[in-house]
């Protein structure tokens, strides 16, 4: 527990102070964003085994809800963050029936839901509301420092959520469900209720994250915030480091996002190739991520 809290505080502190030493704030912001998303995936996949392939749907919903509540309702950006989180949770509530599906069916249905949301938001018929395919310009609320600070706070929230899950009865119940649904029920766990809580928590993190992203980036298009790549990155970062741990997704994000920023922007196809091969290698040789390597060496991962 202490080790986990220290790891979390160190990570948040690092990102809070980094802009003083490092000029590329956008890179830092994106790294934090993927950290939050990877932990959001971790909350769901690491603790319940549901792999949300369409996780980006919550992110996009949060980005649009946040941005539109500033533009159309004149809310303050901080309040808009909350709206982004709430709307993502509402989307999560609508999609609760998907949790009845198992394994790959859930993953694909969730992906389909995110794509459907994208086609709704970007539909030219809804231009009056969402500005359709032409995207959002949030320059009126632009504030790089405040939105960066918001993402730091969000990172703290995401890490705290995972620490909580690793050390609470809810987390124990979720891991029980992941191990064996029937045995979990026979331990008296209300499987439907607990997994719904994890699902909505995970949606909340992505929604808040999307709204913070919209605030920071200020101009974006539907394909930016509903890009399947967002889900994919977050999932692979979490799995690479090791799901169901706090440190795994942190290490996974820092390593792979570091790699991405080194070669992925100038030569995306080479990054994608490495990325694809890493995934294949991961499944075949290290299905529990880097964390399992360190645990095999006798070092417990927080």
């Amino acid at each position, binding site marked *: 527990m202490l080790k986990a809290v220290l790891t979390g505080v160190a990570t948040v502190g690092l990102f809070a102070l980094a802009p003083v030493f490092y000029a590329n704030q956008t890179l830092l912001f994106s790294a934090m964003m993927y950290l939050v998303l990877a932990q959001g995936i971790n909350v769901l996949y690491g603790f319940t085994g549901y792999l949300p392939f369409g996780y980006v749907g919550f992110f996009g919903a949060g980005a649009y809800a946040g941005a539109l509540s500033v533009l159309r309702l004149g809310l303050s950006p901080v309040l808009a963050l909350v709206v982004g989180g709430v709307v993502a949770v509402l989307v999560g509530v609508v999609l609760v029936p998907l949790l*009845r599906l198992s394994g790959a069916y859930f993953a694909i249905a969730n992906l*389909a839901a995110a794509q459907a949301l994208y086609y709704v938001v970007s539909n030219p018929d809804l231009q009056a509301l969402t500005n359709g395919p032409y995207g959002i310009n949030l320059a009126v609320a632009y504030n790089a420092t405040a939105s960066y600070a918001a993402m730091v706070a969000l990172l703290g929230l995401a890490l705290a959520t995972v620490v909580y899950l690793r050390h609470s009865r809810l987390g124990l119940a979720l891991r029980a469900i992941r191990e064996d649904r029937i045995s979990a029920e026979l331990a008296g766990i209300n499987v439907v209720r607990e997994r719904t809580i994890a699902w909505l928590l995970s949606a909340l993190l992505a929604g808040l994250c999307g709204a913070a992203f919209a605030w920071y980036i200020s101009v974006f298009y539907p394909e930016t915030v509903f890009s399947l790549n967002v889900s994919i990155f977050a999932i692979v970062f979490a799995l690479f480091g090791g799901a169901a741990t706090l440190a795994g997704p942190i290490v996974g994000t820092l390593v792979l996002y570091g790699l991405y920023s080194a070669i992925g922007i100038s030569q995306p196809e080479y990054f994608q190739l490495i990325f694809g091969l890493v995934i294949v290698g991961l499944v075949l040789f290290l299905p529990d991520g880097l964390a399992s390597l360190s645990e095999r060496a006798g070092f417990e991962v927080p």
Partner: protein
Amino acid sequence: MLAYTLVGGLLFGLYFGLVALGLNLVFGVMRLVNLAHGDFLMLGAFAAYWAYQLFGLTPVSALAAEVVIFSALGLALYYAVVPRLLASSDPEMLSFILFFGLSQALQALAVIAFGNNPRSIPATVFGRAPVRILGQAFPAAWMVSGVVSVALVLFVYLYLYHSRLGRATRAVMSSREEAMVSGIDVHRVSAAALGVGLMLAAMAGAFSPFMLGSIEPGMGTAVTTVSFTVTVIGTLGEPLGTVLGGLVYGMSLMLMESYLSSWANLLPYLLLIAIMLVRPAGLLARRARYA
């Protein structure tokens, strides 16, 4: 308009049945969702493109080469990864992630090899004269795609129901364990199914320039989703049900595009979710798949 929509829907439906057939065959035999299915279709499309560019072959003539290349690829892929996957703690989820990684790698390789420019094969490769049905004119390429699709479905039918390998394949589909104890070489059957599956995907790819739009390295993801939708409509694990799924999907797509075009993009996704939730075992329901 309606006659055009219906005949067009039929042709597209047959084609979509072919697009998804390989995915469903692989699922039926191995219970693995091949998330790279659409990427193999993309590779098949590029193969047909280069056959046309370099040798002037039409997609129909290119099929012979695709059969050889892609069935070999399927066999190799099977023995390289699947036995290891099936022995793992959670084959369904891990294979899903593995094939997803493969999909990423294939897309990247395609960009590296062919670049990002969209390619196409002129539809006039099958002649300039349109085919007239019920007083409506249809591109000859649509007709050819429809006919090839029917031929390949027939091939799969003969393979499954009138060959020794097919009988063994159906036995594995109904129960892997029972097939194993009754002396069937499950690995051989499964490897063959993956070979046939990839071959079918690649052959469908040869006609994609006429039916799905331009050939691009990134086209696979959408194709996989559509294939999955078609498969689910037609019942997962029931290869011939895919034809029904394709017809339902093709017809609905044509109707949407004729009468509600700006929302047509939503169709595969909404259909997929609706069918999974309302009729989870597909239209030819037998098995449920709830968590």
